[in-house]
Structure formats: structure tokens, C-alpha cells
């Protein structure tokens, strides 16, 4: 199969070719999905260099584990799971290295968010799409890794509680707590941005 053929082939055909050792087919898959895989790594790590390295590592792992891919999910979803797991491993390593601050522990238990008044107005209502995206991105970057990850997995990857718990290696109760505090904090951060925008 020539390179021209690869660009017109669909994902399942490329996957089959790559599984039989065709690197050119794998390269085409990388080209198609590299932004999505990098984007997921970036959303979790919030660091360009780390996201590039982890997404590259994910592709290498993808090639090595290709035999395990049975097609029960789409290729993009399968690769996304690989990069998510690599990011979680990296975040765990970083967490072990840094000393937990009192603030971080308070955030983990949701001490601050529990006291916050409920935001009644929709903080993203009436905003342009690009503006909404920017604000959400800024607010996400202010969350802790744990809260951001659970939000990303639930809202963007559309995972259920059970799946998030399995992926993150924690209980469903922890997932629910983290998701709750992450959402509450996002609501407050977005409301603050709206107030700033009106000034």
C-alpha cells in the first residue's frame, strides 16, 4: 500500500495495516490523531513540553501494544486512554515529589468549596463561543490536578463515575467529591471572570 493510499484509507483499514507491521499506516494514524492526543495531555498537565513528551510516549506505547487493540472502542479513544494513563502516572510521580501544602489538603477535602455561596446566574450565558472556551480554559488551569483531571474525564471524555474511579485508582466516592468541588470551584471562577468582564 502506498502513502497516497494511506491518506485516503479509513481508520480501521489503517489500524489493520499497522497491526501487521506497516509503519507508514501508523504514521498516518499519528498524523490524524496527534492533536487530540496532545490536547488531552495538555489539558491534564498544563505544560507544553510535558504534554509533547507524554503524547510522544503514548504513540510509542500504542505501536508496541497494537496487538492488544481489538477495536471495541475507536482507535482515537483507545489512544486517548493510553495518554490519560501516562499523564496520571506522571502526576502521581510529581505529587510524591512535592510536599503537600495545607491549602492543597484543604482543597482535596473540599473545605473551602463547601462554604461557597451557590452561583445562581449562568456565568457563561451570552458569551461568544471563543470567549467561553478561553474562560473555561483559564478556570481549569486554576484547579488542582486531581480536580481538573476528574472534570476533564467526566465532561470531555464523558466517562462514568465507575470508569473514572478505575482509571484514577480511587473510590467512586472520591470521584464524586472531587467532581462536586471541581464544579463548584469552576462556577465561582467563571462568575468572577464575568464580574471582571463587566467592570
Amino acid at each position, binding site marked *: 500500500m502506498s502513502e497516497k493510499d494511506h491518506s485516503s484509507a479509513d481508520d480501521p483499514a489503517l489500524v489493520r495495516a499497522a497491526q501487521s507491521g506497516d509503519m507508514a499506516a501508523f504514521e498516518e494514524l499519528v498524523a490524524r490523531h496527534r492533536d487530540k492526543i496532545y490536547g488531552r495531555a495538555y489539558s491534564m498537565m498544563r505544560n507544553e513540553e510535558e504534554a509533547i513528551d507524554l503524547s510522544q510516549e503514548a504513540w510509542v506505547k500504542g505501536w508496541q501494544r497494537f496487538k492488544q487493540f481489538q477495536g471495541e472502542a475507536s482507535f482515537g479513544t483507545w489512544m486517548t486512554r493510553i495518554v490519560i494513563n501516562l499523564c496520571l502516572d506522571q502526576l502521581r510521580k510529581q505529587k510524591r515529589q512535592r510536599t503537600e501544602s495545607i491549602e492543597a489538603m484543604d482543597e482535596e477535602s473540599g473545605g473551602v468549596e463547601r462554604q461557597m455561596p451557590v452561583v445562581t446566574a*449562568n456565568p457563561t450565558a451570552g458569551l461568544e463561543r471563543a470567549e*467561553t472556551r478561553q474562560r473555561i480554559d483559564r478556570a481549569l488551569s486554576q484547579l488542582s490536578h486531581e480536580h481538573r483531571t476528574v472534570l476533564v474525564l467526566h465532561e470531555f471524555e464523558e466517562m462514568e463515575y465507575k470508569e473514572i474511579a478505575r482509571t484514577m485508582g480511587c473510590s467512586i466516592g472520591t470521584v464524586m467529591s472531587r467532581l462536586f468541588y471541581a464544579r*463548584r470551584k469552576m462556577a465561582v471562577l467563571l462568575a468572577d471572570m464575568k464580574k471582571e468582564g463587566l467592570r
Partner: protein
Amino acid sequence: MMDHDEQLKIQAYLDGELSETEAREVAIWLAQDQDAGVLLAELRNTRQGLAGYEQPVQLPESREFFWSKIEREILRQESPQTAPQIVPWWIAWRRLLMPVGGTAALVLAALIAGGLLGGSGRPAMETAAADTGALTYRDDDGGNTLVWLSYPAENEFAESQPASTLQ
């Protein structure tokens, strides 16, 4: 004021994670409790605000460059240096026995040198440590000892001295 479990129940209701029976119960409660309804609205707004609004990002490297790094890493990891080699069993055994045989030879040599196998009655040839130019032959059984001295002496001291001093 709601407790934490109640707050989480509202969220689970929003996310469709409750059983049908539980969801019905929470729906009735939400209709009656204003605070619960307000919290549900906030959680829903945040959820709807996020859905489909993830900032799209692009990998800041060209297709060719990014792929070249991946390809290089794949090939590096697949290279013979890192790939486990299949060794036939006889070679594996030979590899295992060679150091054992070597060690046995060394032990044997040490035993011979130490005179444990030869006994004290055999004649021995020695080189004096102080003078490498002197060679001694000793036969304990015969009670003879012969010493050869090379002349002129082939050692550092002799070479540094004029021949006349040795005569």
C-alpha cells in the same frame, strides 16, 4: 443546610448515575427543597458550560518532526541491543559452566602452588624476591641446595652501579 451526601446525591441525579427509584425520590425532594433546586441549577450550568467548550489545541511541532521522534524511539526500542535474545540451552549451560570451570582451575593452581598436593619432599625451584638474578634449587630429601647467581647481575641495583664496585 444540606449535608455532603445530599449534595453528592443531587450531582449524581444530574449525571444520571442514580437508579430509577433513587432518581424519582430525588426529583420529588428537588421539587420541594428550594436550596437543593438552586444547587442543581448551578451544577447544571457548569456542566453545560463545559460541554463542547474545550479549548482546541494543536501540537506545536510539524508532522514530519513529531513522527521522526516517534519512529526513532520505536526503532531504538526494537533494536537487537534491547530486544531479548533467544539463546540455545547448550550455550546457556556453557556460559554457566565456564566461570565455574575457571574458578575450579584457579583453586587447583592455588593448591599446587601452596604445596598441598605436591608434599614437602619434592625438589623446588625458587627465585629470591630480593634478587631476581639469583635462582635457588633445593632438594630437601637429598639435603642439597644450589644457588645460581647471574653475573653480571641483571637487576636494577647492579645496572645502576659501575661493574668495578661489584668485583
